[in-house]
């Protein structure tokens, strides 16, 4: 009944279930992708997760991303003047400037160092592409970023079916909104629609942890929405079993003055490091960049190739 009301209703209506207590068992930043990951339990990748008679690796085992995922999105400052100067330098494998290089750049009087104000934010979205069913790798080439419309992206972590179904439904709602109101839907509204849709099914076994990323008239937008009913706005999220490793890399490398390429490289590196250590993440790194004109697919790179790229210089 809830689904039919979602499909038929003109406006997203949500039924408020008063019996359910709101448990914020998961801390912000810790992955809580619904059932299977108990709050406070840090060993997400060790727990099996499925409904009903489980613990058997059999044909009934459903394919899910739940513990085989690393998805990552962060807002970044895009300093275009630094990007210009990067073109002059040779492509570097390392993402960090050495302090001497930076000084050299600043001393060049010919190119003015202009700091572009806040509205030049963009959002970098990086995901892996592995799907697992228990210990079996179901696929190495899954698309975990769904293109809702030319300026909105959604990432997928959790149950494969749940994510793709609900995000496609969200795409439908967004399009209807656009037609009715003659203007694009905002990222806040799109994420709210999704959150309200899945909240009607809270407790019924949906497993979905998604990030809605986009650009609207308020600038860049990044929201984390999951099947528990969480909807959080933020500057940086990593979701999935490999999220801890990704957080480590991004947190140490994130700066205010990253250029587009540097930010992309940071995202790529973060996902690579996550796939290196997490058994349930792997495949390719898909990278998207969301800017004022919409989103662009930056790159798709195989993790093995990245491995050679990053490990070679060390030998």
């Amino acid at each position, binding site marked *: 009944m809830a689904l039919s009301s979602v499909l038929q209703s003109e*406006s*997203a209506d949500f039924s408020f279930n008063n019996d359910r207590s709101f448990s914020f068992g998961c801390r912000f930043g810790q992955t809580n992708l619904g059932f299977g990951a108990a709050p406070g339990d840090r060993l997400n990748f060790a727990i099996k997760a499925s409904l009903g008679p489980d613990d058997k690796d059999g044909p009934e085992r459903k394919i899910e991303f739940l513990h085989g995922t690393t998805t990552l999105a962060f807002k970044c400052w895009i300093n275009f003047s630094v990007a210009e100067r990067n073109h002059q330098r040779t492509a570097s494998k390392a993402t960090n400037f050495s302090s001497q290089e930076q000084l050299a750049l600043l001393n060049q009087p010919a190119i003015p160092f202009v700091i572009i104000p806040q509205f030049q934010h963009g959002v970098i979205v990086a995901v892996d592409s592995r799907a697992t069913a228990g210990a079996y790798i179901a696929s190495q080439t899954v698309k975990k970023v769904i293109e809702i419309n030319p300026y909105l992206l959604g990432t997928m972590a959790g149950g494969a079916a749940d994510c793709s179904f609900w995000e496609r439904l969200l795409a439908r709602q967004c399009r209807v909104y656009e037609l009715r*109101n003659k203007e694009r*839907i*905002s990222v*806040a*509204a799109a994420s*709210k*629609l999704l959150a*309200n849709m899945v909240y009607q099914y809270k407790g019924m076994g949906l497993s979905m942890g998604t990030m809605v990323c986009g650009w609207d008239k308020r600038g860049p937008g990044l929201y984390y929405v999951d099947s528990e009913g969480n909807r959080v706005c933020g500057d940086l999220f990593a979701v999935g079993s490999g999220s801890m490793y990704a957080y480590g890399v991004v947190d140490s490398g994130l700066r205010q003055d990253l250029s587009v390429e540097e930010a992309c490289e940071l995202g790529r590196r973060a996902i690579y490091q996550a796939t290196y250590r997490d058994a349930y993440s792997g495949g390719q790194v898909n990278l998207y960049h969301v800017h004022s004109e919409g989103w662009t697919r930056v790159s798709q790179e195989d993790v093995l190739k990245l491995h050679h790229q990053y490990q070679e210089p060390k030998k």
Partner: protein
Amino acid sequence: MSIYDRAITVFSPDGHLFQVEYAQEAVKKGSTAVGIRGKDIVVLGVEKKSVAKLQEERTVRKICALDEHVCMAFAGLTADARIVINRARVECQSHRLTVEDPVTVEYITRHIATLKQRYTQSNGRRPFGISALIVGFDYDGTPRLYQTDPSGTYHAWKANAIGRSAKTVREFLEKNYTDEAIATDNEAIKLAIKALLEVVQSGGKNIDLAVIRRNQPLKLLESKEIETLVAEIEKEKEDEVEKKKQKKST
């Protein structure tokens, strides 16, 4: 013809929905309301019906706020208007909750019009007997004025009037709504008063006025302010008459 006007859901052979048209007649019996869209201000003026001696004046207001930045005036059945206004107010807040943005004037007008249309196409209900003038500012600062009627249609207007003698007022507005006439906020307010004075009997006492300025909430003008403005208008009229006399004599 009369056999086709009982049920709302029945068309007449020549394509009329009589109940809807009768509802529009009910609107024409209501007291006049006028709306004007200025550059930085939107004005709503209504004719106040004279109250009985013992009645408290402030119980029934014909101008109601739907949200901070939108308000409406109506003409027709007051009870019907109360229902429509309640639904519109709830929808304004629902929109803020689900979309995290205030409603645009067009959105809430469309919602009210859809509500009215639903009542022209269901069993056992009659149409709402009101026309509404909905004014406000959008999120981006554009002023808007919309009018809805019992059939569920809505249109945007620069200036409009509904209710008794709406035709007279509209003709006045068509003649006098110019860019100079709405150049300043004060001028726009005076234009609304002038339009109402055409049809209202005894001057400033029977006029209720409300304005919304950009980024400011609805403001209902007090009777003293209205009296002052009416006096200004009367003086301007007299000055004009004198000027014409002088021209003729010279």
